[in-house]
């Protein structure tokens, strides 16, 4: 008995063929991004790692970029999707500049635009596999928000993605306050990034800190954090260990 196999139309999202058309899993990923508001604007930190599964494959990935004159975007998750998002924003800013009329898209507008993009992709079951952090300052108003791959978005005085939510946010909740100086802000971010370096296996010890103020965006040269490994438990790992059977 040969039943006619049911045929899907070419463009349906069902069936194995369709899976090649949409994102199922991420391949090259970036880990946490942490950001906070400080006196003059926003500070954001991210390491420069691009992991390929459990391999720490790429070590020179810039995961934070300036958007227009007023905003800074940091991304974790799939790096190729981040690059696609940068292309969308490039077009957006270009058209905004082409008006040449004294109006410009600020961080709030860019954040909401990204929310629309992420949410619409999620609704089509073809997400951009990123968690984004969008910060900026315009006309003295500081703005810091985040959007996830499913379109969840909100703003806050400090935000983080991925592991940063679990390891960095508690530190920020304790120690963040309004009008941090630049030095204190950097110290606080470094404290968060150090914890992430110790505890997140996809973190690498090569990070950048970006700041955005009314004057514009600057991003530091890559540098590494000092870490401490001189614990006796590491020097003599088997001391006091109970043998197996």
């Amino acid at each position, binding site marked *: 008995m040969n039943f006619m196999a049911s045929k899907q139309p070419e463009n349906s999202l069902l069936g194995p063929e369709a899976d090649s058309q949409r994102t199922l899993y991420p391949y090259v990923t970036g880990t946490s991004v942490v950001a906070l508001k400080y006196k003059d604007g926003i500070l954001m930190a991210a390491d420069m790692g691009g992991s390929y599964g459990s391999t720490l494959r790429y070590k020179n990935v810039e995961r934070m970029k300036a958007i227009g004159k007023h905003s800074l975007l940091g991304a974790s998750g799939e790096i190729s999707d981040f690059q696609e998002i940068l292309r969308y924003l490039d077009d957006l800013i270009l058209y905004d500049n082409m*008006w040449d*009329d*004294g*109006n*410009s*898209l*600020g961080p*709030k*507008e860019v954040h*909401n*635009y990204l929310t*629309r993009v992420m949410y619409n992709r999620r609704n089509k079951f073809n997400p951009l596999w990123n968690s984004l952090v969008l910060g900026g300052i315009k*006309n003295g108003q500081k703005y810091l928000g985040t959007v996830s791959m499913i379109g969840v978005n909100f703003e806050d005085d400090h935000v983080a993605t991925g592991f940063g939510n679990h390891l960095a946010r508690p530190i920020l909740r304790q120690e963040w306050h309004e009008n941090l100086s630049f030095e204190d802000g950097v110290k606080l971010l470094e404290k968060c990034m150090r914890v992430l370096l110790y505890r997140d296996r996809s973190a690498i010890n090569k990070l950048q800190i970006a700041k955005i103020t009314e004057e514009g965006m600057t991003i530091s040269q890559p540098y590494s954090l000092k870490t401490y490994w001189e614990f006796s438990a590491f020097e003599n790992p088997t001391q006091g260990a109970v043998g197996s059977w």
Partner: protein
Amino acid sequence: MFRNQYDTDVTTWSPAGRLFQVEYAMEAVKQGSAAIGLRSKTHIVLGCVNKANSELSSHQKKIFKVDDHIGVAIAGLTADGRVLSRYMRNECINYSFTYESPLPVGRLVVQLADKAQVCTQRSWKRPYGVGLLVAGLDESGAHLYYNCPSGNYFEYQAFAIGSRSQAAKTYLERKFENFTDASRDDLVKDALMAIRETLQGETLKSSVCTIAVVGVGEPFHILDQGTVQQMIDAFEIVGEQEGPDAAAGQEASAEPEQGAGAGEGVAPMDI
């Protein structure tokens, strides 16, 4: 005049390089009842004269809120004006939804102008027969624009369109230098005075005019009749004291008006 040969089609040029259909569309604006607009650094006031077809009917709606920060007053074919207002509202809502931010009025005005231009270059369309005074706020402050059926737009400190708008324009030309720093209430008073000029002697009362205001910290809204009547009463008293000067001024401006009127024929009272 000798312009009938090239005026059948909007896509036909005359030998003198004119598109007569577009110019005829601009005539339609001149036939509509007056609408005026004036702005200061922080506020814009729109006003219009309401003429009903008969005593039994209500008057046409000529001022539309487009968004909290943008409003428009129209003169000409009100049906075309309604359709364009709907377009403007749609654009504002879509922008607000995507960017959670108000659409800058300068950009809306350009989109509107481009939409009007399309109708001047398609053989199966006709130009919109309505002039729009667009009042709105954006990052750079308060703006007043005039959109033409031709697809042109201009920015103004103050302007008047529609029938007998020349009288209002003359008044505004005298006073406009004070507008930038004027208070909101003075601006409304000036708008009412400008409307009174277009009424040519008819009594100014709140039932024949509509006033709307938008400004920094004040979303676009149409003032209710009671408030408008109060403001009219407040300055009519002052107006009477200025009586002799105002009357002399009005007579001087009335004569050239009548001369122009005789040439064009009587302008209809209603839209």
